[in-house]
């Protein structure tokens, strides 16, 4: 089957403008007759729901949390990119476009990424107008910082809480529409199926998590803004509730999954401390602006540190290996995430890791504290400042930049990062893969759209820092309000969608039956145990480095685990009323299928690109080897007979007319 990405004709810089000029519109009177469902209230969902309601559509929005403000976008720390060029450092729409395509290792669609770069500046304007308190300089203008993989400062931020401030801005806009009655909000509701009528997505089955009731909701279009599926690894930086269920149910109803194996392993997270751990915590990439990453150069020193016989601060400079600065002198500690993560794994695998587990490297601020301290001494005219005075002044500057992150680190680890280097290790953070969408953000199912992290998105095989917030808000504020018109223009005479049709009845029944199957398993093992086991298989065999043998083993193990799950799981309570374990079981059941598809995808992609590193495809220096001749495409998976193992692989060839494919080098 050939998929059509519906990319507009014409030069890349004109496509979006031309498109907007010609896309069919729905008149204001007709918008009032059209219902839209938005699932998820993160940056993409909140901004889409608010913007569509402002336009006059009737919107129903759903979130599984107790309030739309809790969606996990809230936890994004570092910032949001925009091609404003406020710093006069050579930034432009083209450069943001180029950096994003290159950063994604040439596995994203040019037209979509260019549109993203084009609307990026409007996002900042919009957010400022909403009262989002971005960081400012003393002249009252907006401040910027730099992020990994680029050579300009284009990142806007609000301390280490940028996601929080942007989400609260979108939540405010959403709240305003809820108050006007333009959006009907359903908190503590989880989408458990998409309903298809005449080949189009015409509604959802949502479960009221408090009453256990299955509800039918009809609409002319359904938007999935349900985030990523990093929790398939059990341990990730995602929230505990983040799940793949909505996207996976859509997949089972015919929406193709694209590049599911493209996972971002973030280099700077707090290392694992024990088996009991429920999640991993990110330390913003912005820390790499000032922190230097190193491990002991000699294994015996690493061992001494692991055993507590040696303190890192006592190890002299010449015995430290600043491996990123050594391997990548041009970008140093600011190489993109995939490169930084693999380099950390390589050092730890070689026995240079620190922490009791041997799976951690140092992120050291001593040099930054000294540099800032000396700068302050010069500014204040203290030419004979003591080492202690310099240390104090430098610490104050580092605190003003990263205070909340340092505090968070200390709370979790009980170590003071001003005095001893932080320990970090890569962790699952973001999924570039997701539901395949065309230029209109529509999946292969007519009327079903996917926005934000839920779609396979604009990040190719590796996302650059501060680009997720940009994409979520671009999709919701500035793309979907236009592109949904092309589908809805044919629906102005359809009338409201009845939920009494056989399709709704069947979808509701199958959702209820799935729950019964889980409740009827009279095993003895709690859901979390299965989730942890799945996570371990995924991390060991489909994680930072993958090989054919491991992936084949993983597929067999996941299939076995899935079988065991349906026999051995124990879920207390009943279908009626609040049942947290039952809801969790439904999500884990979907992860158990997704995991297999991810391994299949990783197995089929016989190249290394971005976050996908196949051990068979690397240079003698251990760098990733891309294979553009065979794999410059998006892999799309079609589910067959409800069995992920039988999924059919289709491709969308990627055409690069504006960016030259080169070996991504940060040396």
């Amino acid at each position, binding site marked *: 089957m050939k998929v059509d990405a519906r990319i507009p004709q014409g030069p890349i810089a004109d496509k979006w403008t031309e498109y907007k000029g010609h896309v069919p519109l729905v008149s204001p009177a007709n918008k009032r007759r059209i219902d839209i469902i938005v699932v998820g209230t993160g940056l993409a969902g909140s901004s889409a729901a608010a913007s569509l309601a402002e336009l006059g559509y009737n919107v129903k929005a759903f979130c599984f949390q107790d309030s739309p403000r809790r969606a996990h976008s809230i936890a994004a720390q570092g910032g949001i990119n925009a091609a404003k060029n406020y710093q006069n450092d050579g930034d432009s729409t083209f450069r943001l476009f180029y950096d994003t395509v290159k950063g994604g290792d040439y596995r994203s669609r040019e037209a979509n990424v260019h549109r993203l770069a084009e609307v990026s500046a409007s996002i900042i304007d919009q957010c400022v*107008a909403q*009262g989002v308190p971005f960081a400012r300089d003393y002249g009252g203008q907006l401040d910027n910082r730099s992020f990994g993989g680029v050579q300009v400062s284009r990142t806007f931020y609000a301390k280490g809480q940028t996601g929080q401030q942007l989400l609260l801005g979108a939540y405010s806009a959403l709240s*305003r529409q809820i108050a006007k009655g333009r959006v009907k909000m359903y908190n503590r509701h989880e989408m458990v199926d998409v309903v298809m009528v005449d080949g189009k997505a015409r509604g959802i089955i949502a479960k009221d998590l408090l009453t256990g009731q299955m509800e039918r909701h009809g609409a002319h279009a359904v938007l999935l803004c349900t985030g990523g599926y990093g929790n398939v690894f059990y341990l990730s930086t995602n929230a505990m509730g983040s799940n793949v269920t909505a996207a996976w149910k859509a997949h089972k109803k015919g929406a193709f999954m694209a590049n599911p194996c493209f996972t971002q392993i973030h280099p700077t997270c707090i290392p694992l401390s024990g088996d009991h751990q429920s999640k991993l915590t990110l330390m913003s990439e912005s820390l790499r602006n000032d922190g230097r990453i190193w491990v002991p150069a000699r294994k015996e020193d690493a061992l001494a540190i692991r055993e507590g016989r040696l303190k890192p601060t006592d190890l002299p400079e010449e015995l430290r290996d600043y491996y990123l600065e050594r391997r990548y002198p041009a970008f140093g500690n600011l190489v993109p995430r995939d490169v930084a993560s693999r380099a950390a794994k390589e050092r730890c695998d070689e026995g240079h890791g620190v922490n009791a587990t041997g799976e951690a490297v140092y992120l050291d601020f001593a040099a930054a504290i000294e540099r800032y301290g000396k700068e302050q001494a010069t500014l204040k005219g203290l030419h004979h400042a003591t080492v202690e005075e310099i240390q104090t002044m430098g610490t104050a500057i580092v605190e003003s930049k990263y205070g909340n992150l340092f505090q*968070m680190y200390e709370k979790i680890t009980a170590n003071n990062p001003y005095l001893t280097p932080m320990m970090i290790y890569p962790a699952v953070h973001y999924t570039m893969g997701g539901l395949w969408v065309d230029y209109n953000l529509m999946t292969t199912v007519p009327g079903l759209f996917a926005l934000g992290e839920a779609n396979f998105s604009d990040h190719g095989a590796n996302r650059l820092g501060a680009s997720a917030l940009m994409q979520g808000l671009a999709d919701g504020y500035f793309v979907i309000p236009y592109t949904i018109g092309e589908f809805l223009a044919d629906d102005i005479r359809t009338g409201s969608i009845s939920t009494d049709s056989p399709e709704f009845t069947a979808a509701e029944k199958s959702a209820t039956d799935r729950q019964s199957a889980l409740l009827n398993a009279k095993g003895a093992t709690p859901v979390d*145990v299965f989730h942890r086991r799945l996570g371990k298989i995924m991390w060991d065999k489909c994680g930072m480095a993958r090989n054919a043998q491991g992936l084949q083993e993983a597929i067999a193990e996941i299939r076995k685990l899935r079988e065991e799950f349906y026999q051995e799981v124990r879920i207390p309570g009943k279908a009626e009323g609040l049942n947290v374990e039952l809801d969790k079981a439904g999500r884990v059941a979907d992860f158990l299928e997704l995991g297999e598809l991810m391994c299949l995808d990783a197995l089929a992609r016989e190249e290394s690109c971005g976050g996908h590193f196949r051990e068979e495809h690397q240079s003698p220096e251990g760098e990733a080897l891309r294979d553009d001749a065979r794999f410059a495409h998006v892999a799309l998976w079609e589910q067959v007979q409800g069995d992920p193992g039988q999924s059919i692989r289709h491709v969308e060839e990627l055409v690069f007319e504006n960016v030259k494919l080169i070996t991504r080098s940060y040396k």
Partner: protein
Amino acid sequence: MNFILKIWRQSGPSEAGQMVTYPVSHVSQDMSFLEMIDELNIDLIQKGEEPVVFDHDCREGICGMCSLFINGEAHGPGRAVTTCQLHMREFKEGDVITIEPWRAEAFPVIKDLMVDRTAFDRIIQAGGYVSVNTSGNIPDANALLVPKVDADAAFDAASCIGCGACVATCKNASAMLFVSAKVSQFALLPQGRVEAAERVQNMVRQMDLEGFGSCTNTGACEVECPAGISIENIARMNREFLKASLG
């Protein structure tokens, strides 16, 4: 480590609740408080009992979903932390730990330790926004200069996570800290000034309708707030409210 947990169990909003005692052992000091309850729940499920229900999501202190009144304090001992960031190393071997839900008329208990905080959403809906539609033609962000000191103060107010610890802590179950944080964020910024008078009146009206109590300036909310929201915001809101009332 070993502890004795005394946990509030309540099967539904209108059912009577009670404290139930659970001894827990094999707790690692590196566990977070919620991970300790996770382990308890795994044990309960294996014994065929109902697990303890509690709200939680991000587990990194920012989503505001976790709550819990631990040993008589919102989010437990320690300052500027949420329950999910609290670690067992803060407790002593053998401690008896009391765990209760937020208690306030405006936050009814749903089950066990889970409460309904949608009153906060309704207060935001009453005016916690700037009335601006999505538009690609908004003036350039730098066309509006905001003094750094105002932007920083607005950020500090805006960093409220909406968890409700202030209400749970206040002897009057007042929501003044929460409401004033949002009022302040917008009152401090030029974008928010346009609707400032209307906003503060509408939000305060909704706050009263929801059944939150009055503020008697004990300052307990500020002490327990995990996001470090200052009671200066309450003073600012009172000023804004008075100014708006005088027209």
